[in-house]
């Protein structure tokens, strides 16, 4: 058992943190970038690619770096620390993870290769109005005619859906859920993009008899693979949230030390310092479980339930820290000019992308009677 970074991991963190500090050291820069489409900075994305970060978790034969979940976590945390709007978890961990897990060798080489070098951004078109956080599709149907697959239906909201070069789309096929690759310029594809509350971009994506290529060899239901990829993304998002929570807390404690009311700085008021202490407790507990989640992936343990456990704790911590960071700032916390509210907005978005705490809790509760105690260092996790 070891919960510390090795020297290479520390060096990776330094490098990513340095790059992102240059891009978003000033929170004004993030506001400018998120104000215009595509909602992130293509140059920063290219620099992430140059550093090898966009191919980080993929094997070398797919054009990746062959790194593990802890390295992914380190990058995600640094992204979260400055709430960089680049879609690292969405494109690399979630969509890239699905392509790596399910794609044919040729698809992996083409799509992962393009993703890793920064020339191709994929998005996962899975969410549908009327459903939440399931691994199955229901609103988009796939049909085959003379060897050609076509999709019909609507996906929304699709994160990064308007800018994406390629969409990985889940669809109902033969009673199961299958994944398809749809090129951005495919016939019968309509994408309507819009801004999300956290400065990101999402889209309504409509398929009208749109030609599509199965991801992987046509055949079995792929909902298990979707569940697994979402679980790994949940854990990566947890690290992004950790970075954001850490900054939200630091910003808040600095504010308490400098802002004066009634003639003294705010840290003279015990009611306020106790709330900050409770934020720290939430942060540390969340950090422990987020790290554990990455180690469960690494150990080949039960990633799906581990991700639910991570999700539950991170959701609670995100809400606690996000809301109290604003409250302790007072009115300035809800303004667009000041950064802390944007952190809360981003934390709220992360909480709802792939399942919130209540969702995770109800899944965990259904199983609670099937084992006596949880052993984080033993089966089924390690």
């Amino acid at each position, binding site marked *: 058992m070891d*919960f*510390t970074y090795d020297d290479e991991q520390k060096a990776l963190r330094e490098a990513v943190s340095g790059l992102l500090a240059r891009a978003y050291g000033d929170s004004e820069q993030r506001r400018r970038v998120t104000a215009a489409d595509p909602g992130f900075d293509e140059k920063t994305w290219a620099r992430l690619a140059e550093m090898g970060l966009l191919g980080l978790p993929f094997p070398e034969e797919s054009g990746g770096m062959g790194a593990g979940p802890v390295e992914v976590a380190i990058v995600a945390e640094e992204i979260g620390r400055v709430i960089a709007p680049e879609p690292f978890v969405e494109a690399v961990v979630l969509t890239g993870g699905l392509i790596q897990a399910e794609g044919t060798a040729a698809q992996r080489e083409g799509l992962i290769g393009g993703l890793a070098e920064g020339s191709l951004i994929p998005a996962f078109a899975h969410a549908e109005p009327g459903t939440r956080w399931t691994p199955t599709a229901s609103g988009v149907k796939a049909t085959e005619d003379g060897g050609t697959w076509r999709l019909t239906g609507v996906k929304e909201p699709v994160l990064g859906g308007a800018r994406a070069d390629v969409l990985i789309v889940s669809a109902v096929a033969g009673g199961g859920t299958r994944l398809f690759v749809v090129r951005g310029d495919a016939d019968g594809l309509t994408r309507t993009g819009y801004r999300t509350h956290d400065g990101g971009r999402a889209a309504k994506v409509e398929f009208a008899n749109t030609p599509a290529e199965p991801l992987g060899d046509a055949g079995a239901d792929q909902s298990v693979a979707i569940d697994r990829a979402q679980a790994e993304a949940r854990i990566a998002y947890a690290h992004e949230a950790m970075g954001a929570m850490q900054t939200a807390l630091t910003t808040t404690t600095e504010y308490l030390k400098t802002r004066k009311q009634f003639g003294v700085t705010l840290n003279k008021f015990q009611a306020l310092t106790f709330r900050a202490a409770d934020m720290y407790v939430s942060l540390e507990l969340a950090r*422990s*479980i987020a790290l554990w989640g990455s180690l469960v992936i690494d150990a080949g343990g039960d990633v799906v339930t581990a991700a639910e456990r991570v999700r*539950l704790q991170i959701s609670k911590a995100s809400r606690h820290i996000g809301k109290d960071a604003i409250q302790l700032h007072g009115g300035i916390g809800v303004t667009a000019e000041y950064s802390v509210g944007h952190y809360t907005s981003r934390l709220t978005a992360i909480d709802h992308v792939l399942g919130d705490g209540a969702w995770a809790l*109800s899944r965990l509760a259904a199983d609670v*009677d099937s084992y006596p105690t949880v052993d*984080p260092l033993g089966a089924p996790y390690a």
Partner: protein
Amino acid sequence: MRLQLSPEDEAFREEMRTFFTTQVPQSIRDTVANHRHLTKDQYVETQRILNAAGLAVPHWPVEWGGKDWTPLQRHIWREEMQLAAVPEPLAFNTSMIGPVLAQFGSQEQKEEFLPKTANLDIWWCQGFSEPDAGSDLASLRTTAVREGDEYIVNGQKTWTTLGQHADWIFCLVRTDPTAEKRQRGISMLLFPMDTPGVTIRPIELLDGTHEVNEVFFEDVRVPAENLVGEENSGWTIAKFLLGNERVGIARVGHTKRLLADAKEHARTIVSNGTPLSEDPGFTARIAEIENELLALELTALRVVANSSGGRPDPASSVLKLRGSELQQAATELLVDLAGPLSLASYADGGSDVPEWARAATPEYLNYRKVTIYGGSNEVQRTIIAGTILGL
């Protein structure tokens, strides 16, 4: 980073698990598991079994019976003991005065007291808190005035846990009332509880039990050789002792066992036509506490992995704060599980109400103490805000 225990640590865990579940009498472990209070003999019997196997004071210096274990091994030892419902070695002896004597005591004091302390031949109690000096320990008033080779002690202590069983007391006294800082005029003295002038009075608690006491001193004569360390250095010693007190205070293994019990009992209670073990509201509550406990256990493991040179990590305040809250949450869960059965709290053995349900509310009430002792949770928040966040 690596999740799994090393093969050596895994074997160590197995060894501890086997020892605790086979070498400590089942009747004693059942007493703990059923939330009944232990007798003095049960404490003594258990500690002697552990001590004979070298498992009572593994954190002491090797010279005095300690093992050169890693912080992780100590953690595993404690957790497995709690999971197996083994009474832990008496904290006043093994976590408090023992390490203090090993660090600050004279050679004579070490030789005289340490073996007996490890084996519970001497039962120690703590004379720290006073009616006007709880969390604000530095304001204590009990005085010790030097007269020749003796100190004359006068004053009062309170919250003296299990003092009714104690043979000796380690006591903080004010030896210099004129010291510029309140902390500077304090010393630590050791003396037998049957010294003339010592009177002990039980304090009955909300759960009907007697586990704490008031202790009064009237012209108690203590030989000067029973001073620990230098005169007026008691504050340093007390800080060292209280730092040790916080180690292991998260009691994750203990709360884990309470939750496992709750799951088992939930199958036996029918509510709205189904067992509570199938009631989504109730299982969600268990799942939520269980997840918080997982996060706490992982945090404890991180602290264990980071602790160096025996100095407690400042994050140990997180363990105390959250650990005590989760102990309380688990005891509250058991009361709610028992529902109306919990009112049979003082029914005798002829009652049809199971023992766990009868014990539930007294234990819940008793456990209000855990957010108060060992530095109240408000004190821990002050430490986090000041030491960690710099507020």
